[in-house]
């Protein structure tokens, strides 16, 4: 288990700001699905090769505030989370509207369903892929 400080939506921004002011670099954010209606978001910060993590657990339909106004680089990983998990993020500096990595015909929030996407061998993949 990696060490991570549990935070809530209320103190997210202040904690991130704290790291920012102490000279930490935002490495990335990681999102994963806990169960059918909960998502877990990890914020990784680095200073002198030491990694610190924040762990935030939210409901799938909850809107979380963007930290991109504190760390600009967060727009990339936040947009990715928005794409992959359908996570609603408020106030991103650059918002690709859920089409950052995905194309027009791509499945919607593909990572947010615990299901095997592998096809049977030899199955024609055209069509039936859209979620």
């Amino acid at each position, binding site marked *: 288990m990696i060490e991570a400080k549990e935070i809530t939506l209320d103190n997210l921004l202040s904690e991130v700001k704290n790291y920012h002011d102490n000279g930490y670099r935002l490495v990335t954010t990681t999102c994963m699905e806990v169960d059918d209606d909960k998502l877990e978001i990890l914020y990784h910060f680095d200073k002198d090769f030491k990694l610190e993590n924040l762990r935030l657990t939210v409901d799938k339909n909850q809107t979380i505030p963007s930290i991109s106004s504190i760390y600009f680089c967060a727009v990339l990983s936040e947009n990715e989370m928005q794409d992959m998990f359908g996570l609603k993020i408020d106030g991103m500096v650059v918002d690709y509207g859920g089409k950052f*990595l995905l194309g027009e015909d791509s499945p919607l929030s593909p990572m947010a369903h615990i299901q095997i996407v592998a096809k049977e061998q030899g199955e024609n993949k055209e069509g039936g892929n859209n979620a």
Partner: protein
Amino acid sequence: MPDSNISFIPFGPQHPVLPEPIHLRLVVENEKVVEALPTVGYVHRGLEKMVEAKDVNQMIYVVERICGICSCMHAMAYCQGIEELMNVEIPERAKYLRVIWAELHRMHSHLLWLGLLADSFGYESLFMQTWRIRERVMDILDKTAGNRVIISVNVIGGVRRDIDTEMQKWVLQSLDAIEKDLREIYNVMKDDYTVKQRTVGVGVLSADDARELGLVGPMLRASGVASDHRMTGYAAYKDLDFEPVVETAGDSYARMIVRMKELFQSIDLIRKAFARMPEGDIAVKVRGNPTGEVISRVEQSRGEVLYYIKADGTKNLSRLRVRTPTFANIAALFKILPGCSLSDVPVLVLTIDPCISCTER
């Protein structure tokens, strides 16, 4: 002339100077770029989701294909993560071999990048010369690992192949020849008037900017931050004393110099590794499935990669998250493109050493 002077230029995804598909929405005034928005997604495949289809060992081949150019280091980061989860200590010789192949990969990646950069500002002969040298590195990879690009040497628990003494001698000889050629190119690039015209003062990022943008690797080091993840001493790096290459100017020229100096550093590291490599096994047998979550970080040629691995004891991982260095570095485009000139756009895109297949996975 408020609006009449503005041009909109779609740049990419198919563009001869950028071998990979990335699209830039450029707003240009005369030759000056006013606004630039990169949009990506042309290479997105969804590899992180592949954990549901492939088991722990098969995933090595998938992560190697996140990016062909740094495939060795992807596999290395992944294997190190799994090994940490499963508490496996791999043999010392394997650690050294991993370092050697990683550094060879770094060399071929940097040479490739240098050639593409030269191509982006129309210095075709330099492109050809660097790629000529690069072929020697590819030869070494080919001879030692059996393939030119994706060498698949890393397995969980060690490496797949050994490099015997005779081969070592040949590799070292090749490295000497490479170093000699490189030295010549370095001297030209360092002082060339036209190269300097195109790179000095172009796309400047201060150390603070670089941290704000979350940059990693040579981008960060060119802005004066001595951040090289190899310093943490994973694999055999702890025994190979070295200093990270740092430049302070933060412009395209500094990024070029950093990468060129790292080429010499890599040669040096390989020599040291060969000299200090102990005899012994190259892999240990690993059984069972991993459980728990771990973060594994490795310095790739483009910077630090982060693997977040979560496993629940089945043969498939439950979550794999890869934050590639290019994914972090692409943020720099938001900052350095506005204000540059149109002819600098390919140069600047290349100075971040983009690897779109890494970025999008």
